[in-house]
């Protein structure tokens, strides 16, 4: 090797030295950065804070998930503990049609066999096979899932289960809470409606009362949702070993209404008939217990069906409390009461009927000619406006106003229903004062009238109308019962009796306006009303442009019931107004009176039915023998799974109990059973029964011990002679 020149060696060494130095610098940077990096890690861990943000808190917040534990909305019951409104879930159907939607094992999770799926679904949802197929056969390449409009919405649990049992791939359901109203049209505006709250705040579905009791007691019914707080990863899976805190939901309280479903249902169907036949613009009917103020049945037309929402686009107003109207002549109950009570009533004095001049205005009787000179005692039964103007004038405006106040006119009753109106009273001019005596120039609500009527019915004691009978907390079992609330004693007992006697006259006197309201077998008292309707400052003219009404009390000597029916402007007035009203009033009042006696009778020698369900058959038989009840057994099992009558029901000695046991259902020997007993059998087994004759069973089409199923048809021959 040739020796390099010294200069070159010097240069080379210099370069090498530079390289070494640079290497050392690099090494120092590497070591330095290592410690800087570690320092940063240590700083983050040691301080737990960056930019003044506590990392631990932030992570906890990030992982924390609150899952709502929904409180069950309270149930609304009628007076006999029948369900009027309760919580349930409905299911909405959808189908996945994207063929890329498959399981890990490549099984289709979408609708593969569209024709078959359509055929099966058409059996469960109200949509034809062809239409379902059309929906499933969506050609949009981006469509992942399809729905079936209203047909696939609000399906019950039963329908959902049945569809699921068919194992159709690609068919799914979403669940949403809903409110069940099993009775359909049933005091709809009073019970009200709870709907899913779609506001952003409650996006995940809470039921909110929007009308009636559901709205007024919304807070009580809703309860308080609980929450389950836990930690999850970003996919939503719960983190292992993370603490979980749970706040239990507090279920809503149950509300028992004063409504009696048997009377209510009857009222609904009766009023519906009238409403359809005579087409009034509006109609209300209210039946109240005269002693307690409990509303037993009440309804209005038009109404809606909370189960189907049919008719909901009409009025949302509860006509019984939210609407004030001029009541007309039924108001004479109040003016008569006031006159008698204040000692200004002179029944035997005569006055000239037909017309009377009040400060320059002529007030006429409904019969323009009047009845000539008649005693004041006929003014009420004839419903003479002129007579009542004179009565009002005799007692004077001051006294009259005093009594109006005592009767709670122009004041809310305080019934637990939303939006109650207080009405109004025009009382400045003598004309106003005069016409209030026959119910014009004063606006009232049905509830105000019911309250005022109660004073007459109840010997002067006025009671507040009540719709809620009790509120009970399902968790604590604490029950708050509504007490009868006396809101005043506007008139004396004697006054009340006199007024009720006048009400009798309306029916019984040949000149009474309410003869059609007589119910054979019962003593009834009524007052009729035909109120003019003010519109734009003038009263409407025409035969049907009135609010026709009737209020009745029965039995009139000691009233149990007050029934008040109003009917505005019947569009098909094919009969006189009082006949139309009577076609609703009479059957409802009669049913209530009969129902009353029904209820009282069994108390005499009744036995409380023991609870037998779940017990061994032999044990149940022993119990029944001890209580003196006869029984029949369905099925071959050894354990009672169902019983009729139900436990705690009152039954008469000698009445037959039907027991259903586990195992196959078999036909018992029913010879000698009453028709009623066989009906119990039908109820418990689902068998359809056809009866012939009356009395007790003499033969049965299905022999004893034959297997029964729900499709079985049973023919029973009854005879009045007991065979045994």
């Amino acid at each position, binding site marked *: 090797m040739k020796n390099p020149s010294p200069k*070159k060696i010097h*240069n*080379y060494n*210099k*370069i*090498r030295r*530079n*390289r*070494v*130095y*640079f*290497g*050392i*610098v*690099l*090494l120092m*940077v*590497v*070591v330095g*950065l*290592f410690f800087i*990096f*570690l320092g*940063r*890690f*240590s700083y*983050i*861990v040691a301080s*737990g804070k*960056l*930019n003044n*943000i506590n*990392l*631990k808190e*932030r*992570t906890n917040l*990030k*992982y924390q998930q609150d899952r709502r534990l929904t409180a069950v909305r309270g149930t609304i019951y009628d007076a006999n503990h029948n369900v009027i409104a309760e919580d349930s879930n409905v299911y909405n159907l959808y189908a996945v049609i994207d063929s890329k939607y498959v399981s*890990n094992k490549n099984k289709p999770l979408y609708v593969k066999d569209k024709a078959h799926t359509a055929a099966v679904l058409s059996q469960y949802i109200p949509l034809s096979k062809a239409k379902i197929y059309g929906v499933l056969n969506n050609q949009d390449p981006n469509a992942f899932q399809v729905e079936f409009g209203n047909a696939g919405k609000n399906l019950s649990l039963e329908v959902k289960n049945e569809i699921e049992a068919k194992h159709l791939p690609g068919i799914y359901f979403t669940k949403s809470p809903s409110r069940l109203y099993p009775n359909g049209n049933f005091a709809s505006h009073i019970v009200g409606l709870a709907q899913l709250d779609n506001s952003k705040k409650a996006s995940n579905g809470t039921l909110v009362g929007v009308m009636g009791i559901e709205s007024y007691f919304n807070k009580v019914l809703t309860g308080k949702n609980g929450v389950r707080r836990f930690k999850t*990863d*970003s*996919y939503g*899976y719960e*983190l292992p070993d993370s603490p979980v805190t749970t706040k239990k939901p507090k279920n809503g309280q149950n509300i028992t209404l004063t409504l009696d479903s048997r009377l209510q249902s009857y009222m609904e169907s009766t009023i519906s008939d009238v409403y359809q036949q005579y087409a009034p613009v509006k109609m209300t009917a209210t039946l109240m217990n005269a002693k307690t103020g409990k509303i037993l049945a009440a309804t209005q037309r038009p109404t809606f069906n909370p189960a189907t929402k049919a008719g909901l686009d009409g009025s949302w107003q509860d006509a019984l409390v939210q609407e004030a109207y001029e009541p007309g002549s039924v108001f004479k109950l109040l003016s008569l009461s006031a006159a008698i009570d204040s000692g200004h009533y002179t029944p035997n004095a005569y006055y000239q009927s037909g017309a009377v001049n009040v400060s320059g205005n002529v007030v006429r009787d409904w019969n323009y000619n009047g009845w000539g000179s008649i005693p004041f005692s006929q003014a009420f039964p004839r419903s003479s406006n002129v007579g009542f103007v004179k009565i009002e004038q005799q007692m004077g405006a001051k006294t009259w106003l005093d009594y109006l106040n005592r009767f709670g006119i122009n004041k809310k009753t305080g019934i637990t229903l939303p939006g109650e109106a207080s009405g109004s009273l025009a009382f400045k001019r003598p004309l106003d004062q005069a016409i209030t005596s026959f119910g014009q120039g004063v606006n009232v609500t049905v509830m105000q009238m019911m309250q005022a009527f109660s004073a007459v019915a109840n010997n002067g004691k006025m009671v507040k109308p009540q719709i809620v009978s009790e509120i009970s907390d399902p968790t604590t079992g604490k029950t708050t019962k509504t007490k009868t609330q006396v809101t005043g004693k506007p008139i004396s007992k004697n006054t009340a009796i006199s007024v009720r006697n006048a009400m009798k006259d309306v029916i019984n006197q040949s000149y009474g306006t309410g003869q059609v309201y007589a119910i054979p077998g019962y003593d009834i008292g009524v007052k009729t009303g035909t109120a003019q309707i003010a519109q734009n400052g003038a009263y409407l003219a025409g035969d049907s442009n009135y609010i026709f009404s009737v209020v009745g009390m029965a039995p009139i000597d000691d009233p149990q019931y007050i029934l008040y029916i109003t009917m505005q402007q019947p569009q098909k007035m094919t009969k006189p107004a009082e006949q139309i009203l009577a076609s609703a009033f009479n059957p409802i009042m009669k049913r209530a009176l009969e129902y009353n006696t029904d209820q009282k009778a069994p108390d005499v020698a009744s036995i409380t039915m023991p609870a037998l369900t779940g017990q061994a058959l032999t044990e149940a038989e022993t119990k029944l023998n001890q209580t003196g009840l006869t029984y029949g057994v369905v099925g071959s099992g050894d354990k009672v799974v169902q019983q009729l009558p139900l436990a705690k029901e009152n039954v008469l000695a000698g009445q037959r109990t039907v027991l259903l046991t586990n195992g196959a259902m078999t036909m018992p020997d029913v010879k000698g059973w009453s028709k009623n007993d066989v009906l119990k059998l039908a109820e418990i087994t689902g068998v359809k029964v056809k009866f012939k004759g009356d009395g007790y069973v003499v033969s049965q089409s299905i022999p004893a011990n034959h297997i029964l199923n729900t499709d079985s048809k049973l023919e029973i021959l009854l005879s009045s002679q007991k065979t045994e």
Partner: protein
Amino acid sequence: MQIHKKFSYLDYYILVPFLLLIGAGVVMIYSASSDMLAVAGADPTIYLKRQFFWVIVALVITTIVFLSKIDIWRSDRLIKGLLIMTLILLVYLVVLSIVHPAAAVNGAVAWINLGPINIQPTEIAKLTIILYFAFIFNKRGPKLSHGQIWHNLFGPIILAGVITGLVLIQPDTGGASILAFIAAIMIFSAGIPIGWGLSFVTLLGAFIPLGINLLKKFPLPFLEHSYQYQRILSFLYPFQRERAGGSQLVNSYFAINNGGWLGRGLGNSIQKKGYLPVPYTDFILSVIAEELGVIGVAVILGLLFFLIGRIIYVGIRAHSTYRTLICYGVAAMMFVQASFNIAGVIGFLPITGVTLPFISYGGSSIVTLSIAIGLVLNISSTEKRERAARSKKAQH
């Protein structure tokens, strides 16, 4: 040189950290990826298996490179071939991004799909620059005295600039920065006066904080739609922008804080379960911090920085310019890449999508690193043998 002789000079200070790091990488990749794979309905071991396969490939490559004659890596033909191939691949990516923009992954066209495997030309470019600079500066080193410096540096810098520029427009800011840093460090260690290198490092050290402070005072709203600007903002205001791009850094902070000093235990990271994006690549260090704590991070980074330090040390002691430059280049590559990754997950630098060497998942990266380690092991072994030979000679 016989094979067994080469093995007898094997540098265990490099080999052992290397093996430990790739081993730790395999374990952590499995830990970080299995949950998200399971949630996606895929085989939870798929990344584990793939990484394991690449580790085997990497060890074979390391062995081959280690056993090769070190001088074949400085042949004219190899260097020229590498440069041409790198340029062709990078230009191909640019063309691809124009004619077929759908080829982009995460916004950048950085991969070439070759059937079963994807190659990342940026990785090849790193090795190309290291080998080319070592080759060219070794040749021109003696001429790099005053006055001749620019003349001799001009060509290589232009070439490196073109390669870096092609990576930058992919756009792969992280990759381009790494290439620029490798080039810079090799240029400064080529023999130019030490002052130049020191001033560069000082300027850089001053410029980054200055730039950041300027940006905080004078934001540049007209860049609002620029991806890089968004990244920088997310880095400056991670918590304020948690919902608008800052979540990656914030989640990394959460992971580190969750881990504490000792960690939640292997496999127990919460942040890897959907909170951290790609926990098995860019944010694997956050997962390590969460599962193994600061202690675990210290061990892993300790091994990594020890390895880098050792490579620099081998370079310092090497007798030939070429070997020194290879060592410095390899060390620079690992150091810059590691620093970008670490600085990203602890909020020192914007997140650049750079993976942690040896640990993060990725075949291209591990193959590049295995070639680099093979080269360094080869140099270390060769140097040792030569030193042994020299001392033998001196004794005689």
